[in-house]
């Protein structure tokens, strides 16, 4: 007999109510994440308003190809995550687990490309400091924000990978039931947030000064 952890937890008497509550809870958390990243975007906006030409010139130095490919990768991972969540609802276990796995793979791909991109940025002296490549001081602020925003995004993505991966493994090993499991929806919503943030960061980091 394969043991399955019960997904109904105290204080809930009703799984659908627990599910509703988990979904509501994660959306409230996502609202807080909006303010979290929003603060960084505010800084970016304020500094851009103050230094438009410098920001555009600095923006030209980011690697458009890495950025664009990574955006496509992440959006695709959102697709697989969305399919996985719908499949879980429809009790299609194998599809759910394959898509969770695909999401992890695409997320890892993102991180690998990001790693290569970071290595290239370091070589091009785009780390603010003594050897910084551009001479205008405000360009260092652009890149400080670049490093911080992408790093924080990458940390969120890694946490997401942990959540998705854990679900994929527990589901594959039949340790937990995926159908009607609130954790699937919570994980999916968190993952989509990671995608949404990147979609907003993409034009701000990669599309400046290309014309």
């Amino acid at each position, binding site marked *: 007999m394969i043991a399955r952890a019960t997904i109904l937890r105290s204080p809930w008497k009703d799984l659908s109510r627990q599910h*509703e509550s988990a*979904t*509501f809870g994660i*959306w*409230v958390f*996502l*609202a*807080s994440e*909006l*303010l979290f990243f*929003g*603060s960084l975007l*505010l800084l970016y*906006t*304020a500094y851009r*308003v*103050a*230094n438009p030409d*410098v920001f555009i010139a600095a923006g030209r130095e980011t690697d*458009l190809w890495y950025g*664009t490919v990574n*955006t*496509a990768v992440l*959006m*695709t991972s*959102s*697709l697989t*995550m*969305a*399919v996985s969540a*719908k*499949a879980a609802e*429809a009790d*299609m276990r194998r*599809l759910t687990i394959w898509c969770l796995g695909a999401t992890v793979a695409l997320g890892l791909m993102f991180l690998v490309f990001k790693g290569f991109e970071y290595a290239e940025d370091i070589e091009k002296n785009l780390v603010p400091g003594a050897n910084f490549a551009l001479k*205008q*001081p*405000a360009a260092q602020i652009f890149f400080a924000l670049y490093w911080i925003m992408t790093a924080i995004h990458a940390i969120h993505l890694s946490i997401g990978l942990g959540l998705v991966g854990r679900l994929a493994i527990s589901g594959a090993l039949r340790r937990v039931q995926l159908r009607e499991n609130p954790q699937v929806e919570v994980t*999916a*919503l968190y993952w*989509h947030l990671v*995608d*949404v943030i990147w*979609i*907003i960061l*993409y*034009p*701000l980091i990669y*599309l*400046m000064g*290309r*014309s």
Partner: protein
Amino acid sequence: MSPQTYAIWRKNGLVWLALLVLLGLTFGAAHLPLGGFNVVIGLAIAGIKVTLVIVIFMGLGNSPSLIRLAAAAGVFWLTILFVLTLTDVIASRQSQNVHPQMTEEHSLSRNR
């Protein structure tokens, strides 16, 4: 592929295709010499992509109103943060333009 599987892939796949097309569009538009308008287009397209992800992938289109309220609250408060702070940023720059300074950096330098 069962009809159910097909239906799931179809709906979400269409959104994904739309996202890729929009990505291509924004990539292309960035190369056009539109001056200040480039940023507007870039953010507008990003806005459409974000809306697609939120409404369809995240299911906000079908969610109970309580959840939409939570999402709207986040947006509302972020707007407050932006509007009131940028009021100060822009007002400072305007007063700085009236009294231009000799510094090279067009920073938000105040009372220097």
